[in-house]
């Protein structure tokens, strides 16, 4: 696996090294919060940076300030995978994933053009679990299968979660419009 890690440019090395220096402790704390065990947390942090090295092209494409969130999201994904490997239960806040947004057809909700700013404000108000699912998809650019592995669900279920999350965003935009 290590042999696959390739960082060709000094700039890429600098990016990753800087991210490591800036984020190591907060990532370790986050990993501890999920895994509760220092050695496992350290493994997950290091694995996350290995991923970071492997996907440095994606990180390079992000705005500088978005990189920390990318790392934290990737860390959470890795930690969930780790817990699943170790046979621990995967906990997804079900009440949040089951968020209802009414029965109005989505096409009616999406009929008007939305702006990035509107969607961002709606996204901020989502429950954390829905945010995570969307971040896995759109920030980490994980496949449905990769998300499913981490959450311990089927790909179909992931697609369902994503749809629910998108609908929740739309519903909030709609609420904002009516407010």
């Amino acid at each position, binding site marked *: 696996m*290590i042999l*696959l890690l390739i960082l*060709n440019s000094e700039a890429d*090395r600098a990016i*990753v*090294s800087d991210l490591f220096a800036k984020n*190591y402790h*907060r990532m*370790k704390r986050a990993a501890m919060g999920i895994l*509760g065990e220092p*050695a*496992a947390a*350290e493994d997950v*942090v*290091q694995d996350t*940076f290995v991923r970071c*090295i492997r996907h440095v092209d994606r990180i390079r494409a*992000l*705005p500088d*300030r*978005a*990189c*920390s*969130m990318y790392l934290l*999201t990737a860390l959470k994904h890795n930690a969930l995978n780790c817990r699943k490997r170790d046979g621990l*239960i*995967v*906990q*997804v*806040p*079900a*009440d949040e994933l*089951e*968020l*209802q947004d009414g029965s109005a*057809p*989505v*096409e009616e909700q*999406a009929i008007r053009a*939305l702006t*990035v*700013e509107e969607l*961002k404000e*709606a*996204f*901020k108000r989502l429950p954390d679990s829905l945010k995570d699912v969307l*971040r896995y998809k*759109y920030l980490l650019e994980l496949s449905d299968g990769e998300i499913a592995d981490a959450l311990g*669900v*089927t790909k*179909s*279920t992931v*697609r*369902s*979660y*994503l*749809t*629910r999350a*998108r*609908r929740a965003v739309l519903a909030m935009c709609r609420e904002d419009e009516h407010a």
Partner: protein
Amino acid sequence: MRKREFEKLLRAAIISEAEEQGAILDATPEIEPIPAEAQARFDAALNGNRKEPKRTASEAPSEQPQPVKRAHRWLAYGLTAASAAAVILVVVLQIGTGGLRGTKPQEPVMPAEQQPTVIVLTPPKYISSWTWQTKMLNREFCPRNVVESNLNSEEHRHIDNLIHIKLLEQGNGQYYLDEELYYAQQYRDPNRVPWGEAYGWWVDRSFFYQYATTNEGGSLYRNMNTESLEVVVYVTADGEERLLFKNGSPLARSDTLRIQDFGVVVIDDIAFATAEDYASVLNAHTRGTNKVQGGLDTIGENYVWDLNFECTTVPGLRYELNLIVDSDNKKGYVYAVNMGEIVSFELDYRWGIPMCRGNG
């Protein structure tokens, strides 16, 4: 707005939000030094396999290697080969002695000698308080977010299944879910069909549905009515919660409700089949007593759909049906939790015509 356009904007919004969050994070820089061991691991990953920059033809040395340099090179090759052999030997020995198991501990998170205190959350009077209670516990006591309940916010008033869960106190002010209990219940019961897909791990309606797919003829009550799980159904007719069902014992007339008692069915989120197909199946299944309406969801491409029923015998009562379709196998299943009763039937798409083979 088309789906692709929406997703593009959503991606931009999420990255923008990540940027904002990152700015907040970066505003409080870490001052604590990184442990040497962690730094070393990172450096190893970063440096160990870094490719040397390729030399262009103009940069390549023009002179031919001298014999003494060639000797050095062969010596280097020999040392490299010897090192590789040594590494392989060490790995083989490690595997032979049961090593290379990583740094993860083998012992459970909960020390066996600790006797946990069982805490059962008391059903609250109002759903909102339960929500608050759950979230508060997660935030304050339980970093793993194991305190779960299946409910919606106060704004989404409808039937809900609330589940009592056991929390075990670790002795350090933190609580965790009695994982062993769930594990035993779901995986170690020899009378149960193994779970193919364990998304019933968390406590929510999926638990019921998944249970329904794997249980052979059992009822929901039998297994849910355990000391660890209590099903509590609230009805929010007239904007007020009422306890209808608790621990398998009906507290109201809910046990008489059947799927036929529900009037209008609205099918939402249909991706690859027409809503009318499902409507016809559902109408057939419910013996023509329901009017099923379908709607096409242009955003959703998921294969799980919520169907909303409106009860005709209890005004204001809403009811949910989940439709789960395995797109690979072209089969679908419909499950309805009808106050504890699970109604399911299978849809077969082999001929493009959904057929009901229900057992509900």
